[in-house]
């Protein structure tokens, strides 16, 4: 009697089909071994929203009684494998309709395997993942994050490569042979079968110690009981102190909800050259997440706990080389850029120049005709 479950963490819309292919692939392959299973998305997610962290699951079992224990749940809470299809998600997951940050390895069973598509080294990646408090394994499938467009699926074989790798790290769920047969049957494409096999051979697991990783305690809060909640579905605005805002003498000044941060949606972040900023206010006005703080000297400082990385600020900024979007991978913390600049202007400029070398791979869909052809031409795989 055995049951296995796999969690796939992906980004809304751009990786929805990818996640679905992986989870369906697992169930259909296990079926060839006489097992039964289910594949499902986490109901509270909103996978049609750009870049929002979301989840799909596959649970397979050799008997219906055990499988039933995993049904009628939103999230299987003890997964043999957690697959992450964008390494920027390793910093944590806060999905739509989810309150609080969930460490990427939170639902991974002790001793289970975290499989990540990444071009980073295992050592670097482990530092971004929260400490689990129990040993587990990290397996890297060498690949940049595979993002498709809104209406197309970029079939770059990431799905079958992960399926192949899965059979290496968790053969108890399904064997490589069954997986290859299932891939052949589903896609009728020998190249996809070859990709799965290649990934199986290439993937290596690194053991991660209980204390290894980011030791920051993820923010959390208690949900109030019905006797403590305000009646009438009323949520109070949080009043900032007017003296915090230059030029304001009273009135209501909104501030941010300390327990609702949205940064895990971000794959790129703005960096700001305050020396070129003209204080035109456009970034502050247009930011859909109200993430710009007004500084005492009248600049606009993008708050990195609230920024979703949409890039609107860069698009509306009228100054050349003021706001630049940079790949999120290049950052380790959420520190205020304005404070860094205030402390050491020359040092900040050097930091800024270095960050700007990490331009984001803007592959959230295709922006011009022929882009797909260019991308596959450049892809060494």
């Amino acid at each position, binding site marked *: 009697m055995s049951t296995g479950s796999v969690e796939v963490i992906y980004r809304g819309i751009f990786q929805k089909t990818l996640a679905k292919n992986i989870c369906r692939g697992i169930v259909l392959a296990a079926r060839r071994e006489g097992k039964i299973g289910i594949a499902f998305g986490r109901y*509270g997610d909103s996978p049609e929203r750009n870049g929002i962290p979301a989840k799909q699951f596959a649970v397979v079992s050799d008997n219906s009684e055990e499988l039933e224990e995993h049904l009628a749940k939103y999230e299987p809470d003890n997964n043999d494998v957690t697959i992450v299809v964008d390494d920027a998600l390793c910093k944590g997951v806060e999905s739509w309709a989810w309150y609080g940050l969930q460490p990427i390895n939170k639902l991974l069973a002790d001793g289970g395997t975290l499989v990540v598509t990444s071009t980073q080294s295992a050592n670097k990646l482990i530092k971004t993942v929260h400490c689990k408090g129990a040993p587990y394994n990290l397996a890297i499938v060498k690949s940049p994050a595979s993002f498709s467009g809104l209406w197309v699926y970029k079939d770059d074989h990431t799905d079958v490569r992960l399926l192949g790798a899965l059979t290496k790290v968790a053969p108890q769920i399904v064997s490589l042979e069954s997986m290859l047969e299932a891939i052949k049957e589903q896609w009728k494409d020998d190249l996809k079968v070859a990709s799965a096999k290649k990934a199986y051979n290439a993937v290596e697991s690194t053991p991660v110690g209980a204390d290894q990783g980011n030791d920051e305690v993820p923010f959390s809060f208690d*949900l109030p*009981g*019905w006797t403590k909640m305000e*009646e009438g*579905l009323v*949520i*109070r605005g949080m009043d900032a102190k007017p003296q915090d805002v230059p030029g304001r003498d009273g009135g209501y000044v909104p501030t941010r909800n300390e327990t609702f941060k949205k940064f895990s949606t971000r794959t790129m972040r703005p960096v700001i050259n305050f020396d070129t900023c003209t204080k035109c206010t456009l970034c502050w006005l247009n930011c859909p997440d109200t993430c710009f703080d007004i500084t005492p000297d009248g600049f606009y400082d993008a708050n990195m706990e609230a920024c979703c990385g949409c890039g609107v600020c860069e698009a509306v900024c009228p100054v050349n080389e003021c706001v630049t979007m940079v790949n999120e991978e290049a950052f380790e913390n959420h520190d205020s850029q304005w404070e860094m600049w205030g402390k050491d202007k020359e040092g900040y400029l050097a930091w800024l120049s270095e960050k700007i070398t990490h331009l984001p791979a803007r592959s959230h869909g295709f922006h011009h005709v022929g882009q797909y052809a260019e991308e596959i031409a450049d892809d060494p795989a």
Partner: protein
Amino acid sequence: MTPPDLAVAEKIDGPSGETEELISGSEAIAHACRLADVDVITAYPIRPYDTVMQYVSQMISNGDFDCEFIVAESEHSQFEIVKHASVVGARVFCGSSGVGWFYAFEALAVTAGLRVPMVAMVGNRALDDPGAFGVEHNDALAVRDLGWMLNWVSTAQEALDTALIAYRVAEDPRVSLPCAISCDGAFLTHSQTLVKVPAQETVDSFLPPYDRAEKQLHPDNPITIAPQVNEDWLMEMRRQNDMAMRRARGVIIEAYEDFNAKFGRSGEPFIERYMMDDAEIALVGMGTLAMPVRVAVRKMREQGKKVGFVRVRWFRPFPTIELQDVLGRVHAVGVIDRDYSFGSAFHSGVLATEVRSALYPMENPPKIISFIAGLGGREVNADNVIEMADMAFDAAGGGDINDQDTHWIGVRE
């Protein structure tokens, strides 16, 4: 014994400034809106509710009433507009009938969930198949599970009084729930009787201004109402809703006591007991059914038959305690539904199912016979009522009346 609902026709010394008018139930509701100084009213025509909007617009054009009167493009918009007006601090009134009420259903459901103290009038009407506009109670009953307070009135006077009471109860911060007043189509909405219309000062002494206090949506009071929630919040919100409905019971009792003190009338809050003191069997019903039932009860009393009548005034909150008290003393109860609930237990109507449920935990519950009568606005006459009462007597005496089925009265075989 004088029928209590018609007692207003007698000369009673009312509070000063009260006038007597010959008006319909709909016009009585319009007067209540004027006296309650309602701020926003939305309208969309459907018979029989639309008579209210006619009277309201007439009062506005005559300069007797100052309020925002918005003719919406559908019932859905009608109820959405007042819902939003209510959260910014406006006292609101709305209404509809039959499938018009159903067209607003999405708005109706969230109005209760949002704890918006809207007062609405439902001119009870059949659910339109095919175009029928006679009275049935299924329209208003459709919201019975959602947090709407529901009551049925039987006279124009009761309609006016209950509308004033409804504002006081709905807007009480201990409750803050919407309230729908059901008026039977035709018999109440389109029939004029003598009604005592109270003076403004009396109403003002009874009904405080609507005050949402810190729950008022206003730039100076930055709040969000009803943000998206899921399984981690909603159950707590439903529990709050449940408690509000439980608290409504006490607030209703308070309001009737105070209404009685200020206006010199009101009766028992939740039910009307007619000739129940020594009754051996009881009939139970809602709305204008009361008239033929009371006529029949008096006729049967003349023949020495100890029958009484219980009129359910408030359906939500349901008067479980009162019904256990009054019906626990009789041998058999005949529940008359002017509604249907196809496929329900014993194929009963909604009221019978609810009464049966309320009496089930009693030690010696009476036999319960359920009837469906008067659908589609069909008249229920005294002979129909006597037929039902006789069946209840038969059941009480150990006869072979089937209490595990529902009897359709006045239907052509």
